[in-house]
């Protein structure tokens, strides 16, 4: 592999170069037993119980951004999807679509970052795939990850378990990833204190569930921000959700840049925050558990589940006025007016 500085079409041909890439980079870095055997499928132990199974494809510009990179994003994204279902993530696959000419040094950095994130989450990357597309037909690199996790017995998590009176909590500041990435856009490129919050949340979520086993709903905040999660929770349900916008933790860079660009921070993306609905008697335990975890220092109560308006998410402002909170519809773009 070291013979080349950039990806060539033959790195995806299934031949010698593919093998070199897998052995020297992927298997060597991910260092999991099934991957080292280079079989067509990973053969895994099954501890029994219910399985959670999730997949997600990742593309992002720029590939490296303050606080993370596409590799960390690809691992954390799938780990978080499993974790919010109450599952304990165990195995991950990773499939790459590389653009011809992509620097192998960058690929190596990304792969190492995936390994570091997987270690942080305590999971193994056990199988993978590589394809190469012609120059100009891809955005450098796309990564798909698929994950498996096991769900402990007795958990009842999902919007169907939510009740009016439940309390909405977030594990920390909202909108960090969206604004951090936007700060690196073409023609913008500013240096901020703010970093993307991309992180695997399984540790935090395990801590919370140990302290508050009757959590009714969990969702990691991603594109669409808190607004999307709040709307998903109540859509077509006989209850609604109310967010107190003054209580939502926000980094001051998120506040300032949202204001400058005319976008709503509640719609800006995260990649390392979880929203959960707790029954009233477990709110304190859940909050304390989050505060005890490094990723939950700024956790806060931000709202509650209400009987009316049904099926809608609303915001109650610092002024006591109310407005609807929209389900995000498009990419957030800077506006003039």
């Amino acid at each position, binding site marked *: 592999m070291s013979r080349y500085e950039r990806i060539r079409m033959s790195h995806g041909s299934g031949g010698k170069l593919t093998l070199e890439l897998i052995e020297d980079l992927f298997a060597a870095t991910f260092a999991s037993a099934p991957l080292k055997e280079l079989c067509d499928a990973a053969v895994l132990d099954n501890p029994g119980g219910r399985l959670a199974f999730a997949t997600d494809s990742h593309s992002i510009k720029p590939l490296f951004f303050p606080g993370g990179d596409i590799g960390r994003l690809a691992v954390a994204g799938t780990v978080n999807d499993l974790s919010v279902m109450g599952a304990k993530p165990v195995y991950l696959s990773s499939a790459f679509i590389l653009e011809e000419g992509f620097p192998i040094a960058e690929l190596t950095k990304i792969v190492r970052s995936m390994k570091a994130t997987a270690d942080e989450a305590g999971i193994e990357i056990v199988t993978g795939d590589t394809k190469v597309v012609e120059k100009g037909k891809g955005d450098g690199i796309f990564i798909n990850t698929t994950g498996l996790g096991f769900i402990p017995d007795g958990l009842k998590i999902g919007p169907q378990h939510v009740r009016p009176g439940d309390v909405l909590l977030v594990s920390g500041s909202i909108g960090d990833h969206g604004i951090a990435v936007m*700060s690196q856009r073409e023609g913008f490129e*500013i*240096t*901020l*204190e*703010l970093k993307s919050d991309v992180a695997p949340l399984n540790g935090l979520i395990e801590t919370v569930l140990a302290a508050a086993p009757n959590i009714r709903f969990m969702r990691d905040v991603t594109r669409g921000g808190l607004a999307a999660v709040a709307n998903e929770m109540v859509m077509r349900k006989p209850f609604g959700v109310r967010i107190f916008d003054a209580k939502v933790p926000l980094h*001051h*860079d998120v*506040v*300032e*840049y949202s*204001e*400058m660009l*005319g976008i709503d921070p509640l719609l800006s993306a995260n990649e390392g925050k979880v929203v959960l609905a707790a029954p009233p008697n477990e709110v304190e335990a859940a909050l304390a558990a989050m505060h005890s975890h490094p990723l939950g220092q700024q956790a806060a109560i931000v709202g509650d589940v209400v009987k009316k308006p049904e099926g809608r998410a609303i915001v109650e402002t610092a002024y006591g006025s109310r407005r609807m909170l929209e389900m995000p519809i498009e990419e957030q773009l800077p*506006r*003039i*007016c």
Partner: protein
Amino acid sequence: MCLAIPYQVIDLQENDSCRIRVGSGVQNCFIGLIDSVKPGDWLVVHAGFAVEKISPEDARENLELINRYIFAKDPADKDAKAESSE
């Protein structure tokens, strides 16, 4: 129609521009339409350029107007004046 926000000037730059502080970051701002900008001044910025400068007197008067004229029944109300200078 026009989103514009007050920011404070850090320093002056070439080509009729200055740097303003936005959060922990720094942005460039065109100041060709404003007279005598100094570091520390507050500018009202719309889409990358300063629309106006906020003078300390105007800012004070603005707040006084809101406090005094709006709240008091009589614009010359003494109590209201005292209140606005708190």
